[in-house]
Structure formats: structure tokens, C-alpha cells
């Protein structure tokens, strides 16, 4: 059980992330019981057997940061959880992958960041369409995660459009009001 942030709240979560070692064969590796997020390669190799689990909402798929989200085009209506792995927190590919899943491929289910997920990037992740963030187990206490929720509102009115607010500020607001006059 892990503490994660989901839809703006700290929750306890029982999804497991299946990671392969170099020796594992994606076609043969056994997918454990329970809620599990499998690597894309496992999904692609075992799709017929796994489809029912996905449709039942107990199987998700994670993408590595060098994998093209377009390969899931046919699965976006089936999958209820897609995760994107951050091998390092400085690897920003996941932000484009998330954006493409949401905007280009029409994915509307849970989109989760896994791996090196740090609180100072939560704001950017939410803007790019992540609905849940799963930091490495033990990285944060529940209290720290609760405190980190505030960072989701670090910037009330960002300039540019993104997944969370498609329209840029110049389309959302009448600009030009003098400093100090903005309604809270």
C-alpha cells in the first residue's frame, strides 16, 4: 500500500507496479493477482489474456519515457489507468507523453506518474494531465504529501494553455488590470 496523490487528495493506494528485469520475457512473465500496472511490452505481448483485467479496471499499463504513447491509440477507451515512468525526475519526456495521451489520443482515464516523482514537479504534472502522482515508496511521509498539496496551486493563473486549462491566459481573462486589483 502506498500513499499517493490522486485527484488533488492524499489517498492510500493498492496498485502494484510490475517492473521487468533484463531476464524477464514480456510474453512469459507472470502478471501477479490484484491491481497491477504492467509494462507496455507485457501488455503488447499478453494483450488477449489481459484484456478482461483491463476492462474490469484491475490492470493498467505503464509507458517508459522513451515509448511512444501513440501505440496505445486503440486502448485508450479500454484502459482505466495508464502510468508514465520518470526514470529520473529531470527526464521531462513524461510531460509530453502525458500531454499527447490527453490531447491527441483522447485518453480520459487515470493518468499516473511513477518512478522518480517529486513534489516540486507536481504542479507541472497536473498541468500536463496527470491525475495521480505516485512518489517512490518511503520518499515522503503522509504529512509531507498533505503539505505538498498546496503546491498544486502554486500559480493560480498560468500564462500558457496546457491539458488542465487548454486556453492561455490571454483567452481566459481580460488582461490589463493594474497590479493589486486582481480578484482572489
Amino acid at each position, binding site marked *: 500500500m502506498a500513499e499517493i496523490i490522486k485527484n488533488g487528495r492524499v489517498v492510500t493506494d493498492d496498485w502494484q507496479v510490475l517492473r521487468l528485469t533484463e531476464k524477464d520475457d514480456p510474453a512469459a512473465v507472470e502478471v501477479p493477482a490484484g491491481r497491477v500496472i504492467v509494462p507496455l511490452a507485457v501488455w503488447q505481448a499478453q494483450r488477449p489474456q489481459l484484456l478482461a483485467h483491463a476492462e474490469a479496471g484491475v490492470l493498467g499499463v505503464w509507458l517508459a519515457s522513451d515509448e511512444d504513447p501513440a501505440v496505445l491509440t486503440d486502448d485508450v477507451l479500454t484502459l482505466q489507468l495508464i502510468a508514465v515512468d520518470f526514470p529520473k525526475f*529531470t527526464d*521531462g519526456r513524461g*510531460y509530453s507523453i502525458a500531454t499527447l495521451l490527453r490531447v491527441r489520443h483522447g485518453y480520459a482515464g487515470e493518468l499516473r506518474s511513477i518512478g522518480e516523482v517529486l513534489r516540486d514537479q507536481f504542479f507541472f504534472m497536473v498541468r500536463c494531465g496527470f491525475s495521480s502522482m505516485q512518489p517512490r515508496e518511503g520518499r515522503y511521509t503522509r504529512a*509531507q504529501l498533505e503539505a505538498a498539496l498546496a503546491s498544486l496551486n502554486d500559480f493560480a493563473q498560468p500564462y*500558457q494553455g496546457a491539458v488542465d486549462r487548454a486556453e492561455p491566459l490571454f483567452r481566459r481573462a481580460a488582461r490589463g488590470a493594474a*497590479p493589486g486589483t486582481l480578484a482572489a
Partner: protein
Amino acid sequence: MYKYDAYDQQIVDERVAQFADQTRRYLAGELEEDEFRPLRLQNGLYIQRYAPMLRIAVPYGNLNSAQLRKLGHVARTYDRGYGHFTTRQNLQLNWPKLEDVPQILAELATVQMHAIQTSGNCIRNVTSDPFAGVAGDEIIDPRPWCELVRQWSTFHPEFALLPRKFKIAVNGATEDRAVIQVHDIGLDLKRDAQGRIGFRVLVGGGLGRTPIIGEEIAGFVPWQHILSYCEAILRVYNLHGRRDNAYKARIKILVKALGIEAFRAQVEAEFAHLKDGPATLTADEVHRVSDHFDDPQYETLPAEDAGYLARLAENKPFAAWAKRNVRAHKQPGYASVVLSLKKSGVAPGDITSEQFDLVAELADRYSFGEARVTHEQNLVLADVRQGDLYEVWRTARDAGLATPNIGLLTDIICCPGGDFCALANAKSIPIAEAIQARFDNLDYLHDIGEIEINISGCMNACGHHHVGHIGVLGVDKNGEEWYQVSIGGDQGNDTALGKVIGPSFAAVDMPDVVDALIATYIDSRHEDERFIDTVRRIGLEPFKTRVYGDRNARLERKVAHG
């Protein structure tokens, strides 16, 4: 210049609070060094050789007098009373305390300034022409477009952790004064046959370890689509730029690896999805931002001020200054003044708190309260009446800001180098100072004419050595500082990368090396030929022969005299 509205102010205020909290958590041990590093870098804060360094953003080089005074105050209160202007038009403080940085940012926010994205692997401060809005050869004022790019790129969530840093420059004049050919994206404003505004877009230029001149990716992107087009470029780069090796992570390496055709195809495919999306600029927004850059209330004046002409005729030092440091202006009776930050004995680009105050005073009295920073590390008063030039000169001269050397040999571009920077292989400021000291005869300087010497203390090339007519690069050889010299580089429309003339030199030899290069030029030049033109005409060989011949003769003398 652009003035914040309530939204802009809110964003910088929120940034102050965010960074104060990050700093607090770092100092409390909640944030590890590696985790804090990119956060502080994206706020311009380096941990340097002797102290932290804070790089404050000066968006496209525009400053008003309140900001100048605030910078002077910050340097005086939190640092050692001086700052350093960089080749990207920003200001660096060399000695702030880490724990003071949130307070410094809070002070800066009160005058609509910040340090957002002045470092780190993100979209950096956009740079432009210091003579925007006043140059006679301007096609379209680049400043509103710079501001639109600034806002779009500020905290862009998708592009906050790119493979490497990303620099955008905008030019709007016939002559490129923004060095757009050596930026990750160079935007060149133009009009199409119907008179519509758009951009020629260059991509993949850059200096650093692998200097490359940018290639044209689009001949004309209509203004409405420029942010979407940049977004397409950034997305392709973010997804496909190399992340395995920091030295090969800039977009220029990706463009070279794919070839411009294949890279363009990827960008166009992405752009096809983004075009006409929400990022499409509206005429309302462009007008709103452009209104901030309307001409100031110029007086109607004769084209030439009689008093000014009389002063020029009677006062030789004033005339020498006017010849080098005063530029023609689009408005009759006005001129632009370059305040030189290249006085001998002072590190190029350095400015004291007192000088900040004085420049603010000059700006208020003579130039509508504004000043600009040039990428050559000088300051500009853009809108001075010709009749005020004499007073400006007298005041600036008393403050050490009127060295009549703009565009001359002693107007050296120089990075902070090994005296300050943790990345440097070698010191750069003492080399600049030694060269300035050698060439201290003003008549000789004027005789040598226009020449650009650019010095970098390492291959990161903050001193833009590749595009200097004479470029000097500090290198480390077995723990000793040596200097590699190149000639033939150039910036602007004829941007070219210099060629290395041969084995590197010891610091002590550098004034002699420059001497020999200049002597070769003097002996070979045609009338009215600049140094760079002579290099292009006769090639490297005569310069090499002279420089290394002289050096060998010196070595022999040394041996002979024990």
C-alpha cells in the same frame, strides 16, 4: 517598455513564495542537494567557486530607472556593491548568500523583476536587439514578440525539464543585432508580399562545445501561429533530444543527427496538430502587448542640433566619444547613447551600485526613464535628444561610463571566467584587462578600427568566443591555464565561426599575440578595410606566421638570455 498587469505581478509574487518555501525545505534538509539543484538553477541560482551566483532576468535587455535603482540597492545590500551584465542581457550577482535569495527575489518583484528560468534545462530569458524601436533599419519592433514568447515560456509545464537549456532570440531589423543564428531558435521578423507579419525561423544554432550555425526550418510562419510553431519544435526536441550525454543534448545535435529535412518533417507533423489550437495568438493580445512599446513622446526637433554640432567641433574628447558611442536614431534630433562598461581595469560588463543609480538618473533625465542592456555587455540610453548629449557625456564620463571604445578593440566581450565561475578552465577577466592595458592609446585604437574580441573561460562559450573577430578560449592543460586563439568569427548577418590559428598560449603572451594579429592586419589592410574583412581576404596564414614567428623569437631570446 512592458508594464506588468495584475496577472504578471501575481505570477512573480507566487514565484517568490514558491522559491522561499523550496529554499526553506532545502535548508531544513527536506530537499536533497540533487533535488534542489534544478529548482535553484531554474531560478538563476548557481553554487559557484567561492559563493553562490544569482542571475537576474532582464527580459530582452529592457530596464527602467526604478529597476536600475533596485539592482543597485540589491547589489549594495546583499552583495559587494557591484553586478555583472552577461552576453544574454542578464545581470549576475557574484556574492549573494543562499539564504538571502528569497528576500532578494521579493525585492525584485516590487519592481516587476525576477530570476525565472535564467538557468537550468528550460527555455531561457529571450534576447533581442538593444536598439529595438529606435533603429533606422527596423522592419518590425521585436519587443512585443519577445514579451509574448516570455509569457508563453514562463513555467511552461511541458518544457520545464528539457534535455538541455534552450535559448530563443528575436530580431526585427535588416541587420541582425540579436545573434539569432547561434540560438536554439532564432526568430526573424519579416513581412510577406502582402505585407503580413510573420517569422523566418532558424533552429539548431548554438555556441558551446559544438558551435553550429542555425538552419532555416521555416521561411515564413504567420504571427498568429508562432507560439504553436515554437511549441511543435520544443515538443519534438523534448521527446527526441539526447538525454544520455549532456554534451550532446542541445537541439543542435538532434537537428544535425536527423538532418534539417527530417527534423522539419517531424516539426511540421506536430505543428499540423497544434495549428489553429488555443495557443494561436489573437490580434487583441498582440495589440495589448504592443501598446506597451509605443514610441515615447518625442519632441519635434530639427534633424541636427546646432549646439551639439558646435560642441563636436570644439571638444575633441567629446567628439571622440560621440563618434564611437552615439548612434543614429529614427527620430529627427534624437540619438542613442551606448554607456561603455569596458573601462580599462574594470571587468567587462561590471557595474557598481553607484553607477546603477547614476544610469537611472541619466535615464530619468534624458531618456524617458529607460535603458537597455546589450549582449556586448554595455548599456544603452535609447532616446536622448542631441542637445542633451554633451551633458550625458560629462555625467557619464565622471562616473567612468564614457570610455569612447564601442566597437573598438577594448570593447571586449568576456565571461566571468575562473575568477568566479565553477565551470571555467581558465581566468578570462585578467586576459581582457591585460589586452585593454596594452591597447590604451586612443588614437591607435581608432586607427585599428572596428574589431570584436570575445573571451570565454571554457568551452561553454559564455563569452561567445566562436563569433569574435578574435576569439580567445581558456583551456586547461595539465592543471595550467592556456588560451586558444581563433580569428575570422563574426556575428550579425554574416555570422561565422572563427578558426583556431594553432597551439594555445600562456596568459602572459596574450597581449603580444593580439599585438601580432593587429600588426599583421595593419600591414595588410586595404583602405577602410576592417580587421575581419582583411582576415576574410588574406586568410589565416599571414596571421599565423606572424604570431608564431614572434612567439618563437621571444622564446629564443629568453633562452639566449638565460
